[in-house]
């Protein structure tokens, strides 16, 4: 019970007590129906807050941010050590043996995606083509875990991308305010994210792998299109973040 004692719990207790008091006071003593109704609405709100108090994550957002920073920091060190300077290709789960979307960081910039036609082995260093330079590192990103959250849902097809992204980013992670997806004539997707609450230090890794938000978007887009995708551009202003995704 102790872990549920958060802001919503105290709000629920206050609303339930005030609601009971209002109902008793104004119904029994004053016979005022509108004020008794206000008390009843407080009771309903109190019940809702009590339900939400039991729904908050068991670990604090700070703990989650700490774990994310640690894992991203380790990948950053690995990429710097290997001298990788090519943007990541986000693979759908159908092209990985782990069963979840992952990011492939190729060693050479002239990657030929025609070799990406069968699941890559579940290893850190993978060979994806017949030539010696067709080597890269395969890593899990925040997007890999997010796409797994949608495992039970059908996210195939373009129409499902916006609702899937909204479901993950707004509903499950509560990380942004809203998501809008549009498609250009050349097939690239532009995802406009408003009200982002994910902010952190700008590590060098983000240039090659994309920010955690872009990583989530790319993984879900790859899963929905069932094709390898790349983050083409990520622009941010005060109101929203625009992420452009293209088929690799």
């Amino acid at each position, binding site marked *: 019970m102790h872990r549920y004692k958060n802001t919503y719990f105290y709000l629920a207790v206050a609303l339930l007590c005030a609601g009971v008091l209002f109902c008793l006071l104004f119904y029994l003593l004053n016979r005022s129906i*509108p004020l008794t109704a206000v008390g009843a*609405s407080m009771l309903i*709100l109190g019940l*809702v807050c009590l339900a*939400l108090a039991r729904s908050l994550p068991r670990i604090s957002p700070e703990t989650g941010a700490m774990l994310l920073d640690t894992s991203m920091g380790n990948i950053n060190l690995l990429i710097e050590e290997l001298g990788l300077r090519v943007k990541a290709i986000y693979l759908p789960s159908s092209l990985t043996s782990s069963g979840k979307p992952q990011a492939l960081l190729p060693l050479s910039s002239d990657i030929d995606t025609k070799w990406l036609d069968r699941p890559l082995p579940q290893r850190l260093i993978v060979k994806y083509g017949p030539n010696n330079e067709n080597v890269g590192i395969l890593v899990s990103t925040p997007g890999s875990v997010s796409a797994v959250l949608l495992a039970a849902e059908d996210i195939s097809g373009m129409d499902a991308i916006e609702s899937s992204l*909204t479901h993950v980013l707004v*509903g499950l992670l*509560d990380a942004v305010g809203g998501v809008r997806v549009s498609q250009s004539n050349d097939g690239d997707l532009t995802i406009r994210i408003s009200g982002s609450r994910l902010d952190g230090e700008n590590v060098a890794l983000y240039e090659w792998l994309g920010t955690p938000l872009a990583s989530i978007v790319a993984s879900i887009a790859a899963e929905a299109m069932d094709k390898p995708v790349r983050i083409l551009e990520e622009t941010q202003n005060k109101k929203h973040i625009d992420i452009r995704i293209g088929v690799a």
Partner: protein
Amino acid sequence: MTLYNRYIVSLALIFSLTSVVFALVAIANLDLCLTIYIIESLIVTELFIYLNPRAKRNLIWVNVILFSLFILLVVAKIAEIILGQGLLF
């Protein structure tokens, strides 16, 4: 504002506006007020379809309580029509 806060604020705003309307029309029927609040609550909860599955699971119990109360009010009203005297309020 997080999704949970937006949900609570939406519910509180709708309840407040409804209470103002009740006061303006000087409503004298408590079961009607309760019925309207319950319906509003159920609608707003359904509109927030992107809530966390854990929150949705917990809110189902709130919805069950509210729906049971709604059924109780309807049964009491039917009994009142049949028997000719009010059972509640």
